[in-house]
């Protein structure tokens, strides 16, 4: 039979122990969670441990850990978490104190040095205007990370509050909010960006942040609404309500801690995509504008010259991709740790 000549590891119905947890309903939010499945610990970690498995279980039961303690225990052992966190910490340091790593000003440009290859004075070479690419790449971290960070905080706050309230109270408020999020989903993102940002003369970081918050919060609101509705139906909420807990206590003490996990995960991943979006907006000529130094501006300047000087495109693109990658992987790791189905 064709099914039986494959080796057991390949066979889905093989000897593997099956998870005790029901298969979760697949949805859009599980997009980044593909590694979840195989991370499940279906066998005891240590063969020697098999004998005292029950002892260990008893020891673990002595002290009930919260979801967050559990998550932290999980994260501590995950190298992806550590690598991406280290990269992010490094990036934040570069964003705050770029002067630590270079003494060259990103705006000290000399046209006679235009498009030079790497040298001891300019390790990454120079761009079209004769600016030092190494220095511009380091200084560009600030604008890009500021945009990503504050756009995420803003859209998470607005989205979580509005979506969470809609999920909690339901009714007409929920209906209106759902239609409003539909409206924002209907506008193609780049198109809205073109119109909105052309209408505004200023091209500061905060304008771009404001725009990303305006178009970004509906996504978070949908997820917040969904997870609050799920949390609201749990028995512990009914129990707390039966004990006389008020709405604000229910929301803050019982629903928030249990509904916040997916929002954090989506927020981390959104942060990466906002940084990428900022670059695309600069490419279209509506994002940040000089003298701000950002990876997006450098990339859009490189468009004309990168065929002769690949470094102009490569270094800012690499910095941007590493940043986005770090945030996506951090989001993945946190998602894995927070998903109780996987323990």
């Amino acid at each position: 039979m064709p099914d039986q000549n494959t080796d057991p590891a390949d066979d889905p119905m093989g000897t593997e122990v099956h998870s005790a947890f029901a298969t979760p309903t697949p949805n859009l939010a599980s997009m980044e969670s593909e590694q979840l499945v195989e991370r499940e610990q279906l066998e005891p970690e240590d063969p020697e441990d098999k004998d005292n498995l029950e002892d260990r279980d008893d020891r673990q039961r002595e002290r009930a850990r919260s979801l967050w303690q559990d998550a932290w225990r999980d994260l501590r052992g995950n190298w992806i978490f550590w690598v991406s966190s280290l990269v992010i910490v490094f990036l934040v340091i570069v964003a705050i104190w770029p002067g630590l790593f270079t003494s060259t000003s990103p705006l000290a440009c000399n046209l006679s040095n235009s498009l030079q290859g790497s040298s001891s004075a300019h390790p990454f070479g120079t761009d079209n205007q004769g600016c030092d690419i190494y220095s511009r790449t380091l200084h560009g971290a600030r604008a890009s990370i500021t945009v990503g960070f504050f756009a995420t905080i803003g859209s998470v706050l607005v989205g979580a509050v509005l979506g969470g309230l809609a999920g909690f109270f339901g009714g007409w408020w929920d209906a209106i909010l759902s239609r409003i999020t539909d409206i924002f989903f209907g506008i193609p993102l780049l198109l809205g960006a073109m119109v909105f940002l052309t209408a505004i003369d200023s091209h500061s970081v905060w304008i771009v942040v404001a725009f990303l918050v305006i178009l970004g919060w509906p996504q978070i609101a949908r997820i917040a609404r969904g997870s609050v509705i799920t949390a609201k139906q749990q028995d512990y909420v009914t129990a707390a309500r039966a004990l006389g807990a008020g709405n604000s206590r229910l929301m803050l003490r019982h629903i928030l801690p249990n509904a916040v996990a997916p929002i954090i995960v989506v927020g981390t991943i959104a942060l990466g995509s906002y940084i990428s979006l900022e670059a695309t907006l600069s490419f279209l000529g509506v994002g940040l504008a000089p003298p701000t130094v950002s990876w997006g501006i450098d990339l859009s300047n490189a468009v004309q010259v990168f065929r002769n000087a690949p470094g102009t495109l490569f270094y800012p693109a690499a910095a941007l991709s590493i940043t986005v990658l770090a945030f996506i992987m951090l989001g993945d790791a946190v998602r894995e740790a927070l998903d109780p189905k996987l323990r």
Partner: protein
Amino acid sequence: MGRYVIRRLLQMIPVFIGTTFLIFYMVYALGDPVNAMFAGKAVDPAVAAQIRHQLWLDRPLWEQYLHYMGNIFQGNFGTAYNGEEVTTLMGTAFPNTLKLTTVAFSIECVLGILLGVFSGLKRGRFVDTLVLILTLLVISIPVFVIGLVAQYFIAVKWHIVDPSVAYGSPWQDLILPGAVLASVSLAYVARLTRTSVAENVRADYVRTAVAKGLPRRRVVTNHLLRNSLIPVVTFLGTDLGALMGGALVTERIFNIQGVGYYLYQGILQQNSPTVVGFVTILVIVYLVANLLVDLLYAVLDPRIRYA
């Protein structure tokens, strides 16, 4: 089913009005189109007033909006400020973008689902890891960088295709731009399919199908895939609208005179009939695609029934 469709269509109305009004308002906020028409040159106030009156620009915003929408439902999308009918512009722009989107969407569906199924079935193996790493890389690089680099290597350096798309957008020219446009969505489709397949591979119905002695191909296509495709179809549906709007960047890199090109021009010239007209069509496409997706659920999964 019929009642469900009607309810969904009714729900679309406020969304349609809201989205178009929002865009209408944003274009209105771009500034006075009369100034843009004369490219900043001094205009005779009487002439300016005359033009404003003709274009309904001297009325309140809501009146302008109602007037505009009333015309749209009679098939009149108005005239761009350079005298061309917006419907004529659409006639040249939409076929190009539609072709590009079709190419991108086909690549996305076929390649994305194939890669996803393949790596989902072989999870933990080399192929799987490779697909995961590659898709993560594609997601982390902005599309325009992918586009520029692909254009440089494939078209300029190796001469495999032309770097720019010829007039009329022949299909063979659109393969590279289509692949670039599809790249990020393809990565998402592959990952989504993989997750879904990897979850469902352990489901009882797959075990049953295998136990019945069905050939592996039939288990995968009829039992596993059909059940795994629901989240993928959701994503594909919302992505269709995003692809048409997101073609802006790809069209610019590969010099395709599609929707993105005309919209870009329209925004720069503050040409509200063009911008709002094109966006209206895009919004309708998006809404209809979402409705179709929801109806497709019932086809894919007979357990889902609409009352």
